[in-house]
């Protein structure tokens, strides 16, 4: 019964958004949809407590167990259980406002700075409870880096942007070592060639794509174990996006990467697994191929075929 009501809300949510798209396209969209729907096996339809698919993974590095997040009375994340493996790229997808960013920000406790936010449940990084009283969020964030939707370099020089993290954590013993960290980080972020002669210029003077790569360089300069990316390419053109995707590919050998994206193609290109969120619930998680070729939940299917969102 509860599932039914929630389903209704879902449709009401989804419909206006579908309508807001160019109405001329809509019938065309429906035709192939119907075809796929008929071809598929029976699908889960209701938005229930249970996540469809495989939330566990072989070599879990981050384990979130029954996580709930509230913003005041707004129950933004509801009972999400998910494991994220070492050196895997997992993509979080879902319609706007479904809680992807909220979930992501739980993983490095960035929600701490939002006064109304309250997180319950268990989140462990490498077996250690990150909301435990013995864990300092400062130490956590040195291990879990984050790249934001809008490039946000500090209004400082390119060098200082990258050097900031190592400096505050005391990662470099001397100037030469710091130089080395800055150069390797910029190199790994694929930015070194473009900026090596202008390290003293302000980071804010770079192009959007360059700024985003600078932010990635700044994040990896701290040498984290996990990188969280919240729609890192949404402000970038296709070429800059491609560069960042290559970069994610490369980084995935050393880091666990959790990426929020609105682009199904991007999720398909970069991720090993995909998690589909809907109205604060984790609806379905599975290998990327499986999700995109044969989603097991009706909502997932609707979303990836363009009926929601």
């Amino acid at each position, binding site marked *: 019964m509860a599932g039914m009501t929630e389903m209704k809300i879902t449709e009401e949510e989804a419909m206006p958004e579908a309508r807001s798209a160019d109405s001329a396209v809509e019938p065309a969209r429906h035709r192939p949809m119907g075809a796929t729907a008929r071809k598929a096996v029976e699908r889960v339809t209701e938005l229930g407590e249970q996540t469809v698919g495989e939330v566990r993974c072989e070599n879990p590095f981050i384990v979130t167990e029954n996580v709930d997040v509230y913003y005041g009375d707004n129950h933004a994340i509801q009972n999400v259980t998910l494991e994220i493996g070492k050196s895997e790229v997992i993509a979080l997808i879902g319609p706007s406002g479904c809680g992807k960013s909220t979930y992501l920000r739980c993983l*490095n406790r960035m929600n701490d700075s939002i006064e109304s936010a309250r997180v319950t449940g268990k989140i462990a990084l490498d077996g250690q409870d990150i909301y435990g009283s013995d864990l300092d969020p*400062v*130490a*956590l964030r040195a291990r879990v880096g984050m790249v*934001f939707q809008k490039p946000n370099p500090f209004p400082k020089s390119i060098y200082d942007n990258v050097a*900031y993290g190592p400096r*505050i954590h005391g990662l470099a013993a001397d100037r030469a070592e710091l130089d080395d960290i800055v150069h390797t980080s910029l190199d790994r972020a694929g930015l070194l060639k473009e900026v090596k002669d202008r390290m003293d210029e302000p980071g804010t003077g770079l192009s959007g794509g360059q700024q985003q790569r600078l932010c990635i360089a700044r994040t990896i300069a701290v040498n984290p174990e996990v990188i969280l990316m919240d729609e890192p390419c949404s402000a970038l053109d296709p070429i800059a996006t491609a560069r960042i995707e290559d970069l994610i590919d490369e980084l995935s050998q050393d880091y666990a990467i959790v990426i929020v994206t609105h682009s199904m193609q991007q999720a398909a290109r970069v991720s090993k697994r995909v998690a589909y969120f809907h109205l604060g619930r984790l609806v379905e998680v599975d290998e990327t191929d499986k999700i995109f070729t044969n989603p097991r939940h009706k909502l997932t299917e609707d979303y990836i075929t363009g009926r929601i969102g």
Partner: protein
Amino acid sequence: MTANRKNSREIVEAGLARRRRKEATFRATGMLATAVGVIFLGVFFGTLVMQGASAFKQTFIKLDVEMSESVLAPDGDLDLAYADFDGLVRDALRRGFPAVSGRKERRELYRLVSVAAGYQLRDELTSDPSLLGSTITIWVPASSNVDMLVKGNIDPAIDESLRPISDAQAGWIESLQQADRLETRFNKALFTNGDSREPELAGIKGALMGSFYMLVVTVALAFPIGVAAAIYLEEFAPRSRWSDLIEVNINNLAAVPSIVFGLLGLAVFINWMALPRSAPLVGGLVLSLLTLPVIIIASRAAIQAVPPSIREAALSLGASKMQVVFHHVLPLALPGMLTGTIIGMSRALGESAPLLMIGMVAFIVDVPGGFTDPATALPVQVYLWADSPERAFAERTSAAIIVLLGFLLIMNLAAVIIRKRMERKW
């Protein structure tokens, strides 16, 4: 669909004229308002400059003074502190106008030069004792009434009994002018002297130094306290009923009439803490209380203007709250904080009411040399002079206002320059 579209286009076009009219009316109103403001400002500055400009000049009279030993040291030994230098001046005047006779006439003659003339002669002799016995030619300030007549502030055409200069005096002045013994020069005394009962001796240095010491105290207290409070309230204080209450009170405090702060200063600093009356220290304390809310409000606004993305970036790298504040928020907010502080300071500089309450309205001749010496402040000096009956104080009042406005202008300019220079784009 097409009919509909055409219809809406017609509606838009029909309304266009009305929109343009509204815009034109609004622009005209704005221009009118600006013009009224500019005119008032022009009248204000115009009259001020017209009245005050002459105070920057002072009339001087050339005298041939004989440093006669018989006058200065009638009984043989010379005591510079008590020697009769005024007698020398009187001798010189008598020799200049040998025709003048009679007690009353001579008294009038003596009144042509300022009492400063005697002091000036003493200074001359002190610096060069060999002058004793010789005759020197020296320019001494004329008395303020002579000064007024020369500057045209006294009308010689009106009845003699109605003006402070007699016909005889006017005649002597004319003959001095003809003999090139009368000149108007830059009025250095205005900037080097403290207050005086004699307008030609009165200067603003005492008030200027009083204001300076007060502002030093105010900056030293209000800036760090204000910025620290703003940082705490913005970055660290938990949002609660208490912090809301504090916020409301700070905003209220900024609007409290300044004289109330003076009363508070009198009760707390002078009566209870027994700090000296009329001292720049107490004035500075009162003015810090006065400017504190202004600085806190401006600093909080500056902190709020720092984009949250910068904070998030720093936090996500593992910066602690303190590091975020001191490495990122503060550098970005500093120009705004400094601007707020300078605006607060210029308000403090122009404040007079609270200073009246703590005794800084006294007649003080000496230029204060420290934070606890009795002093006045520039706006209080304006008030004191504006209250004086002598015509010569009127122009000095305007001159003091011009100086005050000059400082305010410099401070506000500094605020603009700091904002322009330090504000970074992000």
